[in-house]
């Protein structure tokens, strides 16, 4: 089917790829159907394009493409809401805000999107982790991740040779 969007003009979407957010996103409760559009090749950013209203779209990203770790507890009620039965079916995205200066772009870690890949039902959940705020600078997290990765690499490198344990 074809939809008209403000950002991408007329686009063709596949019905089976529609993701249903039964209660909508917070503040956008009246919109339920979305599709995920890939950005440029290799870019970790994607668009969550609303099908019900072509003017509405969000930039989304998988948290692990800029963070070292992102621990989130999916509550029983959240899992039940999207009929999530297996943890491996859960696909996690966070919503990104890109201001005029892109270095200041932030991700909303407190209100991530959980999508059940098995049935394409999604919900914006609320993280109970107090370190997850709604505005976390993505570039800061990337720096932290780079430092962590370096640490891990160095600890691997410092192991004596031939030690298989």
């Amino acid at each position, binding site marked *: 089917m074809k939809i008209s969007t403000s950002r991408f003009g007329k686009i063709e979407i596949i019905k089976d790829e529609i993701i249903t957010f039964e209660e909508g996103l917070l503040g956008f409760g009246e919109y339920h159907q979305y599709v995920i559009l890939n950005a440029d090749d290799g870019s970790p950013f994607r668009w969550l394009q609303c099908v019900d209203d072509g003017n509405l779209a969000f930039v989304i990203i998988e948290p692990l493409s800029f963070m070292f770790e992102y621990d989130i507890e999916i509550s029983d009620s959240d899992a039940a809401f999207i009929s999530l039965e297996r943890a491996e079916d859960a*696909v996690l995205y966070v919503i990104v805000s890109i201001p005029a200066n892109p270095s200041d772009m932030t991700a909303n870690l407190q209100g991530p999107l959980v999508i059940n890949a098995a049935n394409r039902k999604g919900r914006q959940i609320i993280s109970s982790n107090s370190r997850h705020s709604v505005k976390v600078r993505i570039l800061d997290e990337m720096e932290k991740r780079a430092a962590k990765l370096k640490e891990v690499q160095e600890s691997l490198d410092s192991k004596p040779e031939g030690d298989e344990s």
Partner: protein
Amino acid sequence: MLVLTRKINEKIIIGDDVEIVLVDIGKDQVKIGINAPRSVKVHRWEVYEEIQKENREAAKTTSLDPLKSLPQDILNKFGKKDSKAKKL
């Protein structure tokens, strides 16, 4: 709006299974205990409001073009797409 007056340790019941107890009263704040089934979402109202506000803010992003002005070495540091998302 229903307004009830309660003393410390007195309770309110909402529906059949949500119990609210007034735990403590301070000078300008009260401590409230909530007993509810796991299926009932309980959050501070501000959290809801903050996420709503952030969603509205994020919806104003109309293009990824500003990202092109970021130095290439930063862009290279983004991780590869998680294979999980390919399921969608």
